[in-house]
C-alpha cells in the first residue's frame, strides 16, 4: 500500500493542473465566443 504515498499527491497535482488550465483558458477569452470559432475554420479565403 506504499503506492498511496506518491499516488495521492501526484493525482492532486494532475487535478490542480487541469483546474489551472481551465482558468487560464477562460481568462484568455477562449470561452468568449462559443459559436463563431466553430464556423471560422470552415471559412476559406476566397
Amino acid at each position, binding site marked *: *500500500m506504499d503506492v*498511496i*504515498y506518491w499516488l*495521492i*499527491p501526484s493525482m*492532486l497535482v494532475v*487535478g490542480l493542473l487541469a*483546474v489551472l488550465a*481551465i*482558468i487560464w483558458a*477562460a481568462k484568455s477569452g477562449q470561452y*468568449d*465566443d*462559443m*459559436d*463563431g470559432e*466553430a*464556423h*471560422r475554420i*470552415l*471559412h476559406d479565403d*476566397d
Partner: protein
Amino acid sequence: MSEQCYHCGLAVPENEPVHRDIKGEEQTFCCIGCASVCEAIHEAGMESFYQRTADGELLAPPPPPPKNVELYDYDEVQSEFTQNLGDIREIHLLAEGIHCAACVWLIESTLAKLDGVKFGNVNLTSKRVKIRWDNRQIQLSTIISKLANVGYSVVPFDPNNAEAALKKQNRALLYRVAFAAFAMMNIMWIAVSLYTGADEGEFKNFFHWVAFGIATPTLIYSGYPFLKGAWDAIRSRRLGMDVPISIGLLTTYFYSLYITIYVPEGDVYFDTLIDLMLLLLVGRYLEAISRTKAVDSTQRLMDLQPKVALKIENGEEKILPIRLIKKGDWVRIKPGEKFPVDGVIKEGSTQVNESMLTGESREIHKYEGDEVSAGTINLNGTVTVKVQSILQDTALGRIIALVEEAQNSKAPIQCTADKIIPYFVTTTLTLATASLLYWLQFDVNTAILAATAVLIITCPCAFGLATPMAIAVASGVSAKLGIFVKNGAVLETLSSVDHIIFDKTGTLTKGEMSVVKTLGNVEQFASSIYAIEQRSEHSIALAIKTYFEEKQVSQAELGEFKVHPGQGVEAIVNNQSVYLGSQSWMKGLEVDDLSDWSAEVDLEEAKGHTCVWLAIDGQAQGVIVIADTLREDAQALMAALKNEGIGMTLLSGDRAAVAHSIAQELNASMEVIAEVLPSEKDAVVQKLQAQGKTVAVVGDGINDAPALARADVGIAIGSGTDVSMDSADIVLMNSKLVDVYNARLLSQRTLKTIKQNIGLSITYNIIMVPLAMSAVLTPMIAAITMPLSSLLVIGNAARLRKFKKR
C-alpha cells in the same frame, strides 16, 4: 403568393417591391436597405456570402446605418472609447445585424479588403467587433460606413465601462467558487476514508497532511474575500459578517494544523472548512449577481444629449463634437433633433417636447428669446440657438450631478443579520473563553479542544447565508412578476417603508393625453374632426384621433388644410370651413356663441384640462376636453396603501390646481406639494427622512431621478426614462402601479423568511454549542451538522418561490 426578398428572405410587401439588377438579372427586394446591401456585397465580389448562410436561415433587413459617423474621427470623441490615440489604434464596436456565422465571414472579409485595417475580429456570441487600424491610411468613419454598406450598423463602445468592470469582478468571484468546489470534491474522499476506518491505520497522519495540502491554497485563494473583508472591518472598527466567518475559518484551520503536526492521534476539520467556504461563496456570488451598478454619470449624460452640434461659423454649417462647442457659439437644430446645449433661441420658432425634463407631455411653443434645454426634442421648426452652457453645466447635467450626489451620500443598508452580528460575536467569544477556563481545571488539551470547538461549530455559515439566499430567491420571483429588483438589499427596506411619495405625470397618470368628454355638437361633426386630426402630429391631435378611432368614425374627404402653430388648425371639409383650436384663437377669429360653453370650459381649465374648441362656418359648435388621465390601478393602490397606514405625498412640478384635482380624483388623503423643481423634490425626501421616516419614491421622469436616488427605496416605472430607472432600486417592468403594493408584499415575505432563517441558525447554535463546550464534538458531527444547517436555510429560502401576487 408574395415573393421572397432576394437578400433577407422575408416576404416582399405587395405594394412596394424594390427591383435591382444583380449580375444582369432583375431581383426583387423587400426594402431599399436589402437591395443596397446586396449590391454592395456583389460589387465587392463576396456573393458567396449567400451560399454560406444556412438554408432556411432568415436574414433580417439591415438596421439603419448610424448617423453622423464623421464625429467618430475626432480624437476628442475617440478618447472615450480607447486610450491609445497613436497612429495604430484599436477599438471595440458593438454591431447590430449579426445573425449567423456567414455574417462573421462577411464582416471579416470586408475588413480584410480595406487598406489600413490591420486586424478585424468578430465575436458572434456577444455581437462585438474588435478592429485595429492605421489612422494615417484610413479613418474610423470610413470603416463604419463600409460595414453599414454591407448591412451592419456598428458603434464604438468602451469595454472598460462600469458594467463590464462589475462583470469582471463577478467572474473573479466565480473562479473562487470553482476552486473551492474542486477542493471540496477532492477533500471529500479523504474525509470519507477517514470516517470509514482509515483513521485507525498507518495512513491517518498522511491523510491529514494531504487534507492540509488541499485546504491551504483554498483558504488563501477562495477564502480571500472573507479574510480581506474581516481585516477591513476590524481596521474601521465595525463588525461585519466577515469577522465571525474569518474567526471560524482561521480557528478551524490552525487547530487542524496543530493536530496534524503535534497530535497524530487527533482529528482534523479541514473538510468542514472547505465546505463552509464553498457554501458561503455560493451565497456571496448570488448576492453579487443580483446587484447592478450605476452607470457613470458623464456616460449617462452623453447618452441623453446629442454628441454633435451643427455650429454656424461665418454663415456656414459645420458638424462639431459637443465638447468643442463654447459658450456664445451659435448652433442650428433641425426638426426631430434633440437640443445639444442649453441656450436662447436667436432665429426661428418651434414646438418643443420637454417631457424628459419636466414630465409634462404637452408640446411647448418657443419663439425668439425663449430658453431651450439640452436633451429636449425640437419637434417641427429649424432654430438657431446661442449657446449658454454645455454638458455638465446644462439643466440636465445638473440633475445628473444631483443624482450622483444623492447616490454617493446614501448610507449602506443595515440588514437585519448585520444588526445581530455584534451580539453573536460577543456571545461566541464569551462561551469559548468560559469553556477554556472551565476545562483548564482538568486538562490543558481538553480545554483547547473545547474552546476551539465552540469557535468552529458557531461559525455562522447558516447565518451568512440567511439574507443572501432569501434575497436571491425573492429577486428571481419578483423578476417573474415583472418587478425588476436592481439592488436586492432594498427588499428588506421596502417592508419598513412608512411614507411613499408619488410623482404625478407619467406615474399616477398615464403621461399621455386622452379625451375626457365632449360638449355641444362635437359628436355630430365627428367624421370631419377625425379627418382633420389625421393630418396632425400634435399630442392633442393624437388624443382626439384615438378617441374617434375607438368610436369607429368614418373619415370625411379633407379639402384645404392649414396649421396655425400654437393656436389650432383650419380646414375645408364637406364645403364647410372647420376650425379646431384654443379659446383665445376663437376670440381672435370672432366666432359666435362662444359664451355657451365658456363657464364650463373655465371650470375644466382650472382642473388643468385642455379644451379644444370646434367652430364651423364662424359658429362655435362645441368643446373637446382633453386631459392626462389616471392609470386604471391608481385608485386601487391608494386604497391598499391607505389600509396599511402608509403616509402618502403627491409631488408634482405641475400647477397646484392640477395636482389638487388629481389628488381629489384619487380619493386618497394625501399631502400635495406642487410646482416643485427637481432639486426641491430631492429636498422633500430629505426632510421626511430627517423626521425619521423610511421613504419610498415612485417616479418616471429625469426630474424624479434625484429623489429616486435619495429615497430609501426608489421605484421607477418601466415606461419612464432610462435615467429614472438607473437611479431607482426597483423597476416596475409592466408599468403597473399595483406592483408597488406587490413589491411591498414580497418584501414583507422576504423579511419574514430572513428572520426565520436567522432563527434556524440560532436554534442550530443552541443545540451544538453545549456539545462543543462539553468537549464531545467530533469532526464527523461537524461535517454532517454544519452543511445540514446551511441546507435548511437554503430550503427555507426556496419556499419564497411560492409567492403569488394579489
